[in-house]
């Protein structure tokens, strides 16, 4: 066979080699985010087909609401010494008629923070059980793998926040200033915070196959994020150094937005600042998460 014939034969072979793929293309979704919904749905399915898990994830915020919210009745402290003033004091301190109502808004962000935290954990499990390795050998975009974790965590946390809100209202949250628009706005703020926080925790788990380390990271971050915010207590009574931390903590802005929108409280900052901050936080961390996945999401 002459060299030219050889060359022709070789190029013919190349064509044959890819002919199967050419047929396949017909069935293939060329969208760069294909698989995103499939992966998101996989995580969500684990949750909604398992009522026990759903129930367990609600217990903690409900216990906090019931025990913490009802036990720490800060209003009662004042009603003993100056009963006629207590209403005014509670309202000036908490911006609403009771500490319970104040805390209820904080509990919404609390439940989102805790759900977001576990989004990182599920990356670790997927790595350990080999599922992640399998996914990594498919042409699905690395960013989709990360965003699926984020989106499933966001969906889960918003549903949980909605249930917590209903329970809080049933337990006596002040609804005198609550509007449908206010509730919608609150969930928009929660949505942004959930995206940012889930991205953060997923990002921290990208390289990890060790769940103990991941647990340690979660505990290290979640309590400061919760306590160094206005979720449980007004930040204006905190020492000055702590207030700086409160002011960079996204949990504070989501809670602040929720209180303004649900309870009509005077805000820490304006609503537009709350939303700008949360939007920036969500975009920044999801972009960092996606970029990091290109580099670090390997075996």
């Amino acid at each position, binding site marked *: 066979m002459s060299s030219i014939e050889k060359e022709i034969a070789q190029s013919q072979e190349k064509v044959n080699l890819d002919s199967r793929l050419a047929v396949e293309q017909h069935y293939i979704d060329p969208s760069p985010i294909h698989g995103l919904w499939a992966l998101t749905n996989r995580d969500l399915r684990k949750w909604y087909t398992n009522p026990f898990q759903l129930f367990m994830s609600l217990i903690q915020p409900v216990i906090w609401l019931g025990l913490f919210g009802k036990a720490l009745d800060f209003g009662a402290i004042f009603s003993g010494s100056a009963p006629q003033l207590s209403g005014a004091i509670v309202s000036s301190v908490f911006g609403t008629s009771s500490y319970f109502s104040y805390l209820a808004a904080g509990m919404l962000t609390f439940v989102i923070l805790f759900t977001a935290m576990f989004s990182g954990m599920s990356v670790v499990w997927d790595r350990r059980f080999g599922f992640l390795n*399998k996914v990594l050998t*498919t042409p699905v975009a690395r960013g989709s793998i990360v965003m699926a974790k984020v989106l499933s965590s966001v969906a889960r946390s918003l549903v949980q926040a909605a249930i917590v809100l209903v329970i809080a209202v049933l337990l006596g949250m002040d609804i005198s200033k609550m509007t449908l628009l206010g509730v919608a706005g609150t969930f928009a703020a929660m949505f942004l915070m959930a995206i940012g926080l889930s991205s953060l925790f997923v990002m921290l788990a990208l390289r990890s196959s060790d769940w103990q380390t991941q647990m340690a990271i979660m505990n290290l971050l979640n309590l400061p994020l919760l306590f160094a915010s206005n979720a449980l207590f007004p930040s204006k009574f905190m020492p000055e150094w702590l207030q700086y931390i409160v002011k960079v903590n996204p949990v504070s802005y989501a809670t602040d937005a929720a209180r303004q929108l649900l309870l009509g409280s005077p805000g820490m900052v304006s609503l537009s600042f709350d939303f700008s901050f949360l939007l920036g936080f969500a975009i920044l961390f999801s972009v960092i998460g996606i970029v990091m996945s290109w580099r670090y999401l390997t*075996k």
Partner: protein
Amino acid sequence: MLGNMHGTNHHYNSSIIEVRELSKHFGKLKAVDQITFEVKEGEIFGFLGPNGAGKTTTINMLTTLLPPTSGEARVCGFDIKREAKEVRKRIGVVPQEYTADEDLTGMQNIMLCGELYGINRGELEKRAKELLRLVDLADAADRKVSSYSGGMRRRLELASGLVNNPRLLFLDEPTLGLDVQTRTAVWEYIRQLKEEYNMTLFVTTHYLEEADSLCDRIAIIDHGKIVKVGSPTELKSGLGGDVIQLTVDNSSDLTDEISKIEFVKEVKKVDSSYRIKAEKGEEAAPLIIELIRSKGLHVTRISVTKPTLDEVYLEYTGRAFRDDEDPSRVWAQRMTMRRARA
């Protein structure tokens, strides 16, 4: 059974995997050290070596899971570093561990896998059903994977590795940890799938018998280096041939005459028995019998033994195959790899 792949398949001569001086270092450990080899379209290529030899690391690089430290590789004609996505579209991977999601059913697992390739749902459903039937899991399709046995899971992994109709399937220790019966069954499926889909298979294993009976060609890898590549027959004949043992009913010495026979390389006599090394044992044996008869003597006992891959392995690595698996060494190596990764 595998004969049809030789010659008749016109894809056979083009390379589907080309590897040039590929290396992967984890810190100081050279898990894979400058390996170079090719896999031809349509063949079953075996990657043989003990635990920790670098088999899985090589697969991880070729399947774009791990970036190489240096060197190059093209899989299905695409560069594993720069064109990883094109490679991923064309390959199927059946990893060593079970990767299926236990909370989903077999069907849901395959559907999920297919969606990650972007296959549209109508086509995918058809394909998933067909694959499940092929691996005999049609009846268990709607059961959660957590209720599957080891053999069933292995088959499910096989099926989901095939969902994108790959040209090249990577199988990392497909029979590891399975009992002998299940192992045979899994290989039977692999053979069947290969015929059905006309694929190239890249298989790692440390079961020598499996590599011997299934693979068209084998690479022996040890300490991250490829020490030998060839067909099982080539590797074995490289050892200096078959061993013929025979006993004659008379102790007169025929050593010199036997040595002159074609194919015979070496003759040793012990009492009235001979131990003969010959290149083609089956062809040499009748000639030897004829010679002995022509001297008026009788052969009372004869055996022809082919060398096994065990001996090949011993020859090229200097170690017996199973002696090598010192668990502490393998463990130490795993830990190094894990630390280097973080």
